[in-house]
């Protein structure tokens, strides 16, 4: 296309900067993973070395796997995260559409009301939430977690999505209306595909705290059947922990699934972003 004038020197500099930053970003993760495969002595003697035949050890993983049903935990985390994201995106986009599309009495007020939740950590409402779950019989179910995460993820989802939906061209929607499309179809068929990058952003944004949360699984669903991966691996990171093999292995096992999930998601995310740009 038009941009042939890019100086190869500038490109090389950009690569250099990006490579340096990539190393900074990945270094701590690699340290954890590398050392999780080493014997305790080797971890301390030379933390930067790769495991070799002498220092290689899976003892940490053995300890961790003995302690709990990691695949079950993973399944729980997965269900909770995907379930919550689905409802956050669906309900959030619907509400954002109502706020950005229609003028009605109390619109601004409703926007502020829905944004309030960004400003207070939901952890403060713990006791009342727990009482609600006890009353509805949802304690120790994954549904309880999905409900809480949906509620806590909505404010930021609505905030970002309504921002993006305001930018969707009005001509397009009016054209749809002239063609006799219902408001629902305008929302689902015209607007939603256009804000895909925003949806992907919101999904990534919300996925992280949900996957990594320790507090609500601990309070609302700490039974063996409903334990999430983060809660399950927490057993190794207490105050009296000295078994670094187990800690590092536990952490590695908590990192890997998220990384894989993210790498899968990442392709979708970028596809979403670029398709939005080409509109």
């Amino acid at each position: 296309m038009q941009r042939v004038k890019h100086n190869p020197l500038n490109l090389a500099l950009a690569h250099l900067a990006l490579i340096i930053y990539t190393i900074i970003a990945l270094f701590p993760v690699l340290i954890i993973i590398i050392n999780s495969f080493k014997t305790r002595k080797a971890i301390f003697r030379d933390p930067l070395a790769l495991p070799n035949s002498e220092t290689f050890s899976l003892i940490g993983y053995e300890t961790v796997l003995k302690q709990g049903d990691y695949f079950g935990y993973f399944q729980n985390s997965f269900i909770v995260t995907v379930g919550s994201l689905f409802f956050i995106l669906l309900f959030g986009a619907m509400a954002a559409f109502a706020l950005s599309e229609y003028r009605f009495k109390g619109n601004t007020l409703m926007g502020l009301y829905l944004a309030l939740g960004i400003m207070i950590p939901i952890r403060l409402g713990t006791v009342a939430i727990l009482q609600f779950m006890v009353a509805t019989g949802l304690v120790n179910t994954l549904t309880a977690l999905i409900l809480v995460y949906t509620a806590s993820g909505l404010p930021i989802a609505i905030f970002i999505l309504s921002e993006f939906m305001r930018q969707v061209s009005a001509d397009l929607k009016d054209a749809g209306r002239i063609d006799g499309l219902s408001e629902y179809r305008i929302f689902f068929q015209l607007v939603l595909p256009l804000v895909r990058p925003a949806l992907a952003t919101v999904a990534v944004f919300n996925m992280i705290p949900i996957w990594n949360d320790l507090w609500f699984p601990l309070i609302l669903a700490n039974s063996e059947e409903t334990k999430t991966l983060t809660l399950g691996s927490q057993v190794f990171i207490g105050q009296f922990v000295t078994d670094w093999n187990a800690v590092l292995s536990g952490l590695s096992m908590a990192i890997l699934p998220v990384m894989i999930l993210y790498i899968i998601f990442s392709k979708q995310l970028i596809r979403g972003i670029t398709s939005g740009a080409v509109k």
Partner: protein
Amino acid sequence: MTTETRPKRRWQILVFLAPAVLVYTALMILPLFGTLKLALYENVNEQQVFVGFKNFATLFGDPNWSEAFWRGLKNNTWFFIIHMLVQNPIGVAIAAMLSVPALRFKAFYRTAIFIPTIMSFVIVGFAWKLILSPLWGIAPGLLDAVGLKHLFQPWLGKEEYALTTIALISVWQYVGIPMMLIYAALLSIPDEVLEAGEIDGITGMKAFWKIKLPLILPSIGIISILTFVGNFNAFDLVYTIEGAMAAPNFSTEVMGTLMFRTFFGHQTQPGDPNMGSAIAMMMFLVILAGVTIYLFFIQTRMRRYQF
């Protein structure tokens, strides 16, 4: 919009809003409201008694409380300043480099740089404690390799460096967010706009400052306000690295750790939900003030640049 369709649309508003409002009200607003209400009460012999603004008077009048609160607020502010000065510029710079069409391996860089963002505080805290540990020798060893060993300090254990170190760890973790948002914004700039600029001889760095930057300002605005809200709610990273006591000597105390320690208690110190709620209320007001300034002064102004 034509008048005859209007009554129909009223129902749609309700349908679109209802699920979000219901879930959000039941599980967020009501519980939080119930908690914040406690700020106006006091526990007298296991009974909640209404005392008006007494807890706030204690919070600001009793030096034991007020010093802790102001220290927290000050540290939150410093935390925010570092994020604005380091995290967001780095994020924008990386996004700008990634948006250069001729650049290869984009997907690799983008994925790698975002990885810290998807990790839990527990992992981030643990990893950095290891790296910066004076015992493990990773940081001192690396500094030694470039002949700067004398610069090494037990940063996380020194009052004067601990908070800044944690802020930089947080920057490391979250650079991915401004990078992604700005990257998306840069990609959505229509080619015609840039081409028009090129015809006028605006290219390269100049194009970035003169054309692209004004166009991505709304995204920078969203990032700033999200950073603000996140930083003034900061808690988890300090908690996992320095504990609920915000060591050393409370130098990493943020409003979140003070609130958590007060509300839920700590070791042998029992929780005080009333004072804890008063602190939470103040956090809420500080954040509300920031968001209001953004919504009414900054965002309205920025709208003009939209295309």
